[in-house]
């Protein structure tokens, strides 16, 4: 296999259940592997300062519908406040980014394919696209963030001053290019 090129991506696993790694973390690893992007994966409970220094970019993955343990452990993600490198939060990862940024958790169940309309270009997408949803909650973001989709439920958000992104849907299913756009930042 060719040597990886470019940045080192840190993938953060937030799953409570070991078996969910295959469903929510491995698909992201596979996308990066296919494109020869260097990465390493850590569970958020085992994350060290060294890991955050080593990483050029961070992706926080999603987890299952029933798993909200990461919300109870939100203090483990306080490091995001001072983090200056690019970060992408997917589903649970987006909720984490939003909560640390002063947002409020709200209930809204969506499962399966839905169309989402982007009002502005967001990780290479600026039109109506089909996305895969799997969430019970979303975050009503604070003013620190700009919202990129139309509709009441925040599906795509970015910090106004930093390269911190969040998507509520799972781009690893239908919108793999968005993950690669993030890697290119």
């Amino acid at each position, binding site marked *: 296999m060719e040597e990886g090129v470019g940045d080192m991506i840190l993938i953060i696993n937030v799953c409570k*259940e070991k*078996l*969910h790694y*295959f*469903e929510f973390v491995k698909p992201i690893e596979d996308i990066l592997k296919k494109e020869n992007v260097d990465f390493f994966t850590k569970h958020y409970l085992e994350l060290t300062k060294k890991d955050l220094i080593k990483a050029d970019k961070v992706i926080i993955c999603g987890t299952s519908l029933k798993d909200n343990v990461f919300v109870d452990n939100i203090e483990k993600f306080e490091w995001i406040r001072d983090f200056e490198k690019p970060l992408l939060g997917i589903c649970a990862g987006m909720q984490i980014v939003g909560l640390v940024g002063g947002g409020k958790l709200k209930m809204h169940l969506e*499962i*399966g394919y839905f169309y989402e309309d982007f009002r502005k270009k967001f990780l290479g997408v600026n039109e109506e696209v089909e996305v895969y949803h*799997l969430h019970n909650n979303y975050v009503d973001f604070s003013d620190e963030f700009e919202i990129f989709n139309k509709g009441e439920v925040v599906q795509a958000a970015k910090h106004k001053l930093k390269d911190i992104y969040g998507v509520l849907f799972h781009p690893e299913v239908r919108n793999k290019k968005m993950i690669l756009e993030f890697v290119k930042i």
Partner: protein
Amino acid sequence: MKLAVLFSGGKDSVLSAWLAKKNGYELSCLVSVVSKNKESFMFHTPSISMVKVQAKVMDVPLILHETEGVKEKELIDLENALLKAKNEFGIEGVVSGAVESVYQSSRVQKICNRLGLECFNPLWQKNQMEILDDLIKENFNVIIVGVFAYPLDKSFLGRKIDKKFVIEVEKLLNKFKINPAGEGGEFESFVLDCPLFKSELKVKSFEDFGEENSWRRELEI
């Protein structure tokens, strides 16, 4: 955690069950929904009656639930079967062999959510060739029991998934855009042996049904 396996007897559901077991989960029961409709949207149908024999060599109780196989109504049958698994075996989660089908996986997710069960899809989005390689690596003995797309024909029935098969389907993938793991319904498989089985199953006899590029094999074990 106690899990029910959504069990068709094919490679994906058995490999998912094996991944669960390997990662420390308890397989409390298998749930098989037998569809009277051979064109079922949700459920693998060839040789499903043989899941009884697989359950026996796995030493795991089986809940066999019959459905007419009418689109969406078969989901009520699945929900009832999982409710039975929850009440009788105290399951806390369900493991399925979904790989790419959002139609199947989102419906299972909704049912699990309603029943308060965790939902596990350990093969989700997995590269199709990687699944076939894993079967070989993990010493699975899997044969083809159904083909449903051109250029697959009767000659594929009974073929073992081995290195030769993998090379051949990889060529078909490139030439005809066939899904190499058959998850798009191109072919169906049956597991004769794997690390979950206490003994290997032997095919006593079989009968083939079909025409041209649509064939199924009913096994007698």
